[in-house]
Structure formats: structure tokens, C-alpha cells
């Protein structure tokens, strides 16, 4: 893909629009979804079915003062929310939405995504630390240990995908899975990979929930314990940016899952591949995120870490070896 000035501008606007719309209206989806699960109606006043609610919320947040508490590290306090937002948007650049839609098809795009995810974690750490609040401090410490613990099994499972596809380029990985659901990594029939890849998928999905700090792993912002966690001292758009960053991380997580395991833009029956299939897949995954959040209670921090270190990491290691053996055998 050659890159002209116009392409760059087009992609910039496109990605910003996609990110902005998702960040705003996923909040609406979450509230509506939660309401339906809880036998409520949810937002319904602003616009049709409350669709203008995100705009109203955004306006309200913008009109508030960004309060910087006394005695905090002002610069880091202001930078942290921005830092939470930037990696999530940047990640969009390497995601292939369809065969022809995608800003950049880098050779090491998988690695880039994980590097950016770590920056989002640093944003939480900085935000919590700079707030000068004990709840925020506990929360950020939790977030770091949690994200560290879950990045390892996540990477180990991604290696299985990389081994099968023979590439670290997300676009190549997606192209490798074209031609119907039996080619997707999760069900892959050839070479007997269906034996292990669904395990990879489950581990990856659990890790994705944990990486995005979603319930039941929302230890960092456990509101009944830590009030609002690292966001306790944030108001106005500082809080808004953290929220948007969280939703964008969910979108990125869903995109990554769709590309790595669910064939990217491929149609399940190998007929009409295109961006609509990709969007359908990520929104089903996002709905699953919401569904899980509103069904389960929160777990405990040590159980969360135990799950990663004692179960997921050994399993993903074993999984990696079996997958490697399968590639060798066939």
C-alpha cells in the first residue's frame, strides 16, 4: 500500500471518527444492554431510544471544570488521561478492517499492539499515583499487577497463532484464514489445529477481559471497594478520556480477537467477505463483554492473579508446545 498525503489524512479522519463514535456510543450500548439485562429501559429521554445521551453526557463533561486537587503532581495528573486515550486510538492504525480497509499493514503489527497496551497500563499507573489518593494508589498497583500477569498468557497464545500463520502481520494472519469458518484459527481443520486453538481462543478472550479491566476482573475500579479506583480524583473530561480509553480498549480487544481467531473480515460460509462481517464479529464480541460484566460478581485480586499465574500460564505454555508439535507432525 503506497501512502500519499491524502491517504494519510483519510485514514486519520476515518480512524478518529471510528474511535470517537465507538467510544461515545459504546457507553450507550453498555447502558442499554445493562438495562435490558436488568429488566429496565435504560436511557430513553434524549433522542430516539436515548441515542443522543452520549452527546449530552459529553457536553456535560466538557462544561465542567477539570479540578486538580491540591498537592498532586499537576503535569502527570493532566497527562495521564490523554495517555490512556492515545494508545487505544493508535492501535486502530494497524487493524485490518477488511482486505482493502486498514491504515497500515506493518510486519510486526501484533507486537506493536502489545507495546501500546502496555502504555495504556502506564497511564493508569500514573493517573492513580499522581492523584495523591490512597484508593487510587491501591487501584493503580492492582492494575499493574493484573495487566502484567495477563499479558504473559495472552502473548503465549498469540504465539500459537503466529506459528500457524507464519506471520506477525495482522493482515496476513487474516488473509491466511479466508474461505469459510473451517479455515478460521479457532476451528482450523487442517493439521489438526482445532485440537488446541479453541483453548487458545478461550485463554485469549479471558485475558482480553482482564487486560481491559472489565468485570469480573475490574479490580482497578472496584467501586464498592476503591470508590472509583484510579479515577477517584478525576472529573470533567479527564474522567471522560479514561472512560473513552476503556471503551476503545474493548474495541481493540474485540478487533484483535476477531482478526486472530475469527477470520477477520471473512464470511463464515466463504461467500461475501467484507468489512460488515468484521464489524458484526467485533460487535458480537463487545456484546459478550457487556453480557459478562452484567452477569457476574467481581472476583478477588489474589484469585485473579492465581488464575493467571497458576492456571492460564501453564495451560498456554502446554498449549504452545502441543501446537508446535502439531505443526511439526503434519
Amino acid at each position, binding site marked *: 500500500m503506497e501512502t500519499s498525503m491524502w491517504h494519510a489524512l483519510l485514514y486519520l479522519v476515518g480512524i478518529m471518527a471510528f474511535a470517537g463514535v465507538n467510544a461515545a456510543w459504546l457507553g450507550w450500548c453498555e447502558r442499554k444492554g*445493562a438495562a435490558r*439485562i*436488568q*429488566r*429496565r429501559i435504560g436511557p430513553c429521554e434524549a433522542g430516539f431510544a436515548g441515542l443522543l445521551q452520549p452527546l449530552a453526557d459529553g457536553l456535560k463533561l466538557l462544561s465542567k471544570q477539570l479540578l486538580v486537587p491540591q498537592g498532586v503532581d499537576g503535569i502527570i495528573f493532566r497527562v495521564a488521561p490523554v495517555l490512556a486515550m492515545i494508545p487505544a486510538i493508535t492501535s486502530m492504525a494497524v487493524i485490518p478492517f477488511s482486505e482493502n480497509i486498514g491504515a497500515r499493514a506493518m510486519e510486526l503489527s501484533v507486537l506493536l499492539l502489545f507495546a501500546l497496551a502496555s502504555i495504556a497500563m502506564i497511564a493508569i499507573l500514573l493517573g492513580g499515583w499522581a492523584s495523591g489518593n*490512597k*484508593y487510587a494508589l*491501591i487501584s493503580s498497583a*492492582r492494575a499493574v499487577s493484573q495487566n502484567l500477569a495477563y499479558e504473559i498468557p495472552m502473548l503465549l497464545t498469540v504465539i500459537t497463532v503466529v506459528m500457524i500463520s507464519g506471520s506477525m502481520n495482522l493482515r496476513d494472519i487474516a488473509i491466511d484464514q479466508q474461505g469459510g469458518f473451517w479455515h478460521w484459527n479457532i476451528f482450523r481443520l487442517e493439521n489438526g489445529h482445532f485440537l488446541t486453538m479453541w483453548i487458545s481462543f478461550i485463554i485469549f478472550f479471558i485475558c482480553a477481559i482482564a487486560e481491559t479491566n472489565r*468485570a*469480573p476482573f*475490574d479490580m482497578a475500579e*472496584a*467501586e*464498592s*471497594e476503591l*470508590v472509583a479506583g484510579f479515577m477517584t480524583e478525576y472529573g470533567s473530561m479527564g474522567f471522560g478520556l479514561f472512560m473513552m480509553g476503556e471503551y476503545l480498549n474493548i474495541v481493540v480487544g474485540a478487533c484483535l480477537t476477531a482478526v486472530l481467531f475469527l477470520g477477520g473480515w471473512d464470511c463464515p460460509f466463504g461467500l461475501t467477505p467484507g468489512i460488515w462481517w468484521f464489524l458484526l464479529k467485533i460487535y458480537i464480541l463487545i456484546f459478550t463483554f457487556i453480557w459478562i460484566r*452484567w*452477569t*457476574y*460478581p*467481581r*472476583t*478477588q*485480586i*489474589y*484469585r485473579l492473579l492465581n488464575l493467571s499465574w497458576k492456571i492460564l500460564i501453564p495451560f498456554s505454555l502446554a498449549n504452545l508446545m502441543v501446537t508446535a508439535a502439531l505443526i511439526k507432525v503434519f
Partner: protein
Amino acid sequence: MTVPVSPRHDETFVLNLGPQHPATHGVLRVKLTMDGEYIVKAEPVLGYIHRMHEKLAEASTFAQFMPNTARMDYLHALAFNHGWALVVEKAAGIEVPERAEYIRVITVELNRIASHLLWWAAFLLDLGGFTPLLYAFDDREKIIDLLERITGSRLTYCYMRFGGVYNDIDDEFIKGTRDFIKRLRGRMPRLYHDLVTHNIILIKRIKDIGIISAEQCRRYGATGPVARGSGIDYDVRKHEPYSVYPEFDFDVPVFNEGDSMARYMVRMHEMEQSMRIIEQALDKLPEGPVMAKVPKVLKPGAGYYYSAVETARGSLGHRLVCNGDKNPYKLKLRSPTFSNLSLYGEVAEGMLLADALALMGSLDLVIPEIDR
């Protein structure tokens, strides 16, 4: 999970949990000395919603104090009504018509179910499960509607009178109550147990967490579901029968584990037992007046009186001292949560913050009742 903590003062910090905190369900403050996420020392600080009801009682006549009782335990207000009515009736020697006692039992037990439902909702909220809150409120709303029809208010009831109740129940209330019991029995196994009680995350979260021994319960005077979750078979309705409770066949659920799960299970089973009591009371409901002939101004004889009732949180006692005047000379309210909370500091020591909050939720705190 509890680990032995060695507090080093240069490595601990003080965390003020409350008085405004989502997990304290009101204005309770707990001063926590923390070592990382482990609690070295927990010290509840009370009094943020103290209103000196005992002084108010001394300043008002016996009947005037009745509305105050509902303002203490706003979740099980009818039991507080009942307790106050019972102690004054004991002091003044008032006989209550049988039908009135049956109606008292029916409404108190309905209120107990409502209280347990709200506890269940709030407890799950403490553990990060949001959805059960709405399901429990759905059922609780039915009870509140029924009680509103009879008592005229939805939360802070002033329904009981010395010598009876203020309003008779009608056929619609009886039908509505039976329908509600049928509905809750239908929803209980699927909604409450399949979705929540058997959820592995919940079980891991509260099983073996916050273990209170029977001896601790006795030394701290803990009663109600907290004591019954620790294997103490003590229920005022059974062991010190009052009102018409001896006429009903019901069990006292007792669990021996002493952990948060046991207290959870006690309350879940108690709802079923309350439903049994209501059903029997509705079946046996006698005809007759609901109010005895009582003088306008009560002047009980001088002396010391005590009366206990079982509220949703434990044994509520009224220690009443009369000197023959038309207002109480001294009233001490022995509120159950005051004693139940006093063991928190000992049990929470060495626990993780999140576990300590699960323990606090399982104690079922109602702050106005602690602070009175």
C-alpha cells in the same frame, strides 16, 4: 485468605473507609490501618447519624415515640414497631386481641423478607454484581406495595399501636400476599440460587472468608443471622417466644461454618421460613377486633421492663424503666447491629481489603440502627 501480618509502623498507612463510601451503606466510618492491601487494624467509628432517640423517648409520651422506632432500622421498621409495642404492653399490662397479633406477625414477616431481599441486593452490589440488585428490588417492590396498602407508608411504618394495629387487613391484601409468596417461591430457585448462589465466583469470594466463631459471637453479643451462621441456634422467636409465634411451625436455619457464605445461606433460608409463617398465619387468621380498649394516656407502673424481638439483623431489646409517669423514665435500645459490628475489628484483622468489605456486607449493617 488470611495471612499473619507483622505491622511495621513505617510501612503501614491509614485508610479512612467512609463516612462516605459505597460499601458502608450509609455513614459509617472504618479507620483501617493497612499494610499494602492487608488490614492490620480496623476500627469502626460511629455516630455520624446519631439522633439521640433515647432522649427523645424520655421527652415524649409512649405513643408519641412510636413513629421514631421506624426511623432506626428503616429496613425492618415493623419489627421495631413491634418491639416498642410489646415492651409498653408488657409494662402497662395490655392484652392484645388475637387477630391483631396475627396481623402483626404477617406484616413483620413480610417486612423481614423485604429486608433480606434488600440485604441480598446490597451484598451482591458490594461484591460487584449489579444485576441481582434490580431483580431483588423487583420482588421487594411487591412487598412494599402490599404494606403500603395496609399501613399507609412504604418504608418508615408507624403501624402498630399499644393494644393492636392501626388498620385491619382486607381480602385483597391476603390475596396479594399469597400471590407474592407463590411468585417468590417460583423465582427463588432459578433467579436467586441458579444465577447467584451457585455462581462459582461468588462462592470463591465468600466461602471461608470472615470466619466468626461461636465463642466470638457470645463474647461480643452477636445475635441474628450472624450468630446462626456460626452454629448458634438462637432465635428470639423460638427461645423467648413472643406474640403468637409459638403457634407456627417453622425452623431456625443454622449453619456451622461461620463464614460469609454461612450468613448468606442463613438469610436465604430465613426468607423461606418467613413465607411459611405468613402462610400459616393467613390460614389460621382469626376473626375479631384488631384493637383493644386502651386508655388514651398510658401510665405503666414503676419498674424495670425488658422485651426482645427478632429483627432481620438479630435480637432487638428494649430496656424500659418507668416511674409511673406518662413518659418513659429511661429507654435503652439494644440494637442488634451495634453488637454485631463490635466484633468487626477483631475479625477483619489480617484480612484483605476486599474480603473485609465482603465481611462487612455479610454483617448486614443498617447505620441508623447502630447510631440510633
